[in-house]
């Protein structure tokens, strides 16, 4: 029996029993859609966190944190250890360390005001002070990123932040996209000592500082404005105290080579400092994503297994109902193998149809869920454009699992159909 003919027989049989076929397909649809939805969500979460928020540091770079607590401008001093100039000097003297790039965080609130394409906006901003060395190849030419005697403060923004603005905020608000060329030389105003949470908090002094964006880099913290470190130290000293002026938020420790990284990290931890690499965070998030994928994937597989049982039962019932038809097939020349093939093909078609519809359903639901979630969240460049990333691999996996469950469910009924004795089932009127 040629595959085309077997396919025709199987298709005709499924078309004849539309109600039951629809019921069986819907079981597969639910299982596959659930699987794709969950795996797509986990993959989206992993990518959004790893690729957009964490990033990865070069293998020779370690980030040593001050162990202060808080986010952005809202920082609390570390009660256990300070990362000050002396500490930075001690780290720099450690064996295997090439150089140390300290970062200072502005210890008071700040607001950034700017105007793009004729639209002004204001946002709370975290301000970091960094050394020009940290920019590496992204360092603007001509000493543009350095302490100036007068004029606006030079600032650098994260390239990932621009990317997130373009793919999230700009797209959802119908705004033009930004690029580095547009941003460079853009003027802005930084209001230090004020934020939307605490405008001119507690009578603290407020300072208005003009900023000028001089470049973008992958080597600066994500959601903040990075300026030459001297400015931040000066502002901290003026608006807080001397201790704040001398403290660093964190430092990038550059090892001499990749082989030295492990021993440097050990020495830093032994000195009571918190060591982190972007890679480690990415690996942790990746591991969590894998566990979640496994857990959610298992739920999807369980649903598919249940629909597989439904398919097995329905096909078994179908064998009973169609015993006379099977008998006629055998009488006109079908072998046991032909009968088996037809039943397995029916299961395969149910699985394929259900899986394809399930994947389509999941993609549609992801679109709807994205819209609902994004509508309920405030506009922010930190909010990703989508919470789901359904790769070809996820769709392929769902298709394979959906089809495999259906075909496996069809094996027993197919064998039963092939074993029917035509002489028995054709007996009587």
């Amino acid at each position, binding site marked *: 029996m040629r595959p085309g003919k077997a396919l025709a027989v199987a298709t005709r049989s499924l078309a*004849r029993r539309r109600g039951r076929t629809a019921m069986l397909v819907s079981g597969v649809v639910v299982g596959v859609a659930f699987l794709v939805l969950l795996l797509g969500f986990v993959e989206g979460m992993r990518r959004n966190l790893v690729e957009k928020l964490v990033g990865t540091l070069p293998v020779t770079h370690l980030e040593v944190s001050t162990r202060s607590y808080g986010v952005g401008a809202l920082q609390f001093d570390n009660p256990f250890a300070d990362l000050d100039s002396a500490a930075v000097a001690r780290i720099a003297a450690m064996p295997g360390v090439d150089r140390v790039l300290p970062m200072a965080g502005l210890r008071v609130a700040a607001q950034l005001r700017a105007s793009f394409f004729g639209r002004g906006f204001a946002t709370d901003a975290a301000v970091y002070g960094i050394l020009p060395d940290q920019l590496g190849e992204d360092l603007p030419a001509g000493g543009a990123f350095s302490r100036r005697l007068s004029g606006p403060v030079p600032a650098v923004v994260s390239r990932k932040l621009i990317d997130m603005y373009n793919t999230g905020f700009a797209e959802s608000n119908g705004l033009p996209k930004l690029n580095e060329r547009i941003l460079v030389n853009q003027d802005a105003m930084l209001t230090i000592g004020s934020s939307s949470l605490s405008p001119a908090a507690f009578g603290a002094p407020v300072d208005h500082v003009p900023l000028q964006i001089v470049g973008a880099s992958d080597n600066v913290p994500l959601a903040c404005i990075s300026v030459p470190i001297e400015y931040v130290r000066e502002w901290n000293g003026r608006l807080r105290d001397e201790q704040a002026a001398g403290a660093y938020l964190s430092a990038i420790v550059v090892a001499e080579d990749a082989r030295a990284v492990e021993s440097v990290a050990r020495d830093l931890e032994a000195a009571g400092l918190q060591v982190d690499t972007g890679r480690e965070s990415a690996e942790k998030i990746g591991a969590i994503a894998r566990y979640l994928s496994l857990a959610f994937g298992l739920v999807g597989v369980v649903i598919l297994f249940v629909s597989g049982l439904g398919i097995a039962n329905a096909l078994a019932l179908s064998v009973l109902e169609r015993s006379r038809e099977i008998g006629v097939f055998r009488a*006109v020349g079908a072998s046991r193998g032909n009968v088996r093939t037809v039943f397995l093909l029916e299961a395969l078609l149910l699985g394929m149809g259900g899986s394809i519809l399930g994947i389509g359903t999941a993609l549609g639901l992801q679109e709807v869920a994205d819209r609902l979630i994004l509508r309920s969240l405030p506009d922010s460049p930190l909010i990703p454009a989508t919470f789901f990333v359904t790769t070809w691999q996820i769709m392929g996996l769902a298709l394979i699992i959906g089809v495999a469950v259906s075909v496996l469910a069809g094996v027993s009924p197919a064998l039963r159909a092939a074993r029917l004795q*035509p002489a028995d089932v054709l007996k009587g009127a």
Partner: protein
Amino acid sequence: MDQAVIVSARAVGKRYRRDGTAFDALQDVSFSIAPGTFGVLVGRSGSGKTTLLNIIGGLDRPTSGALHAAGRDLAGLSDGELSRYRNEKVGFVFQAFNLANEDSALENVLTPYLFARGRHRDAVERGRASLASVGLSDLADQKAGTLSAGQRQRVAIARAIVRDPVLLLADEPTGNLDAETGSEVIGLLKHLNHEQHMTVIVATHDPELTEAAGFILTLRDGRVAADEAEP
């Protein structure tokens, strides 16, 4: 096997086992049928007619003895070979027609081609010719379920002969028909036997059929009560 014999049975037996009890549906059945014969198997219900017909047609296998048909030792054939024998050499007509009511007459007639090689266009051509030979060329596209009982049995006959079999086996073909329609169907079977020289074997308990038969095998409790060739 003798070339002048299309079916030859030697001490054929069929034993069924149900619930630990053995039951002999056929015992020591021997006969020979010449090609082009109109043969009749007669006997009461349960005498073994259907069992013997199924064994001749390769739907069942004997548990003892030997049966040769259309030049083949059926006992020695694999499932695939036996299936090909049914597809190419045998046509079955059942009492209950066994048609797919949702399909058209032509689709029913073409069922054997699902398991045969060849182009679809040729099969359709052959199917239409087969329907024409049973007088139903106008109803080719009509659903089988909408046809009368006599028309449905004609469709079943068209399906049985569409592959030009050498053996046409009919099990109580008039059992579900009224007398007039039954006579028409028997007339059609005789016509196929005379005009196309097809060997026709009919299992029946209708004694009238025996009148024109060239071969009669009477079965009683699974044994041959009498057999006679054309005088």
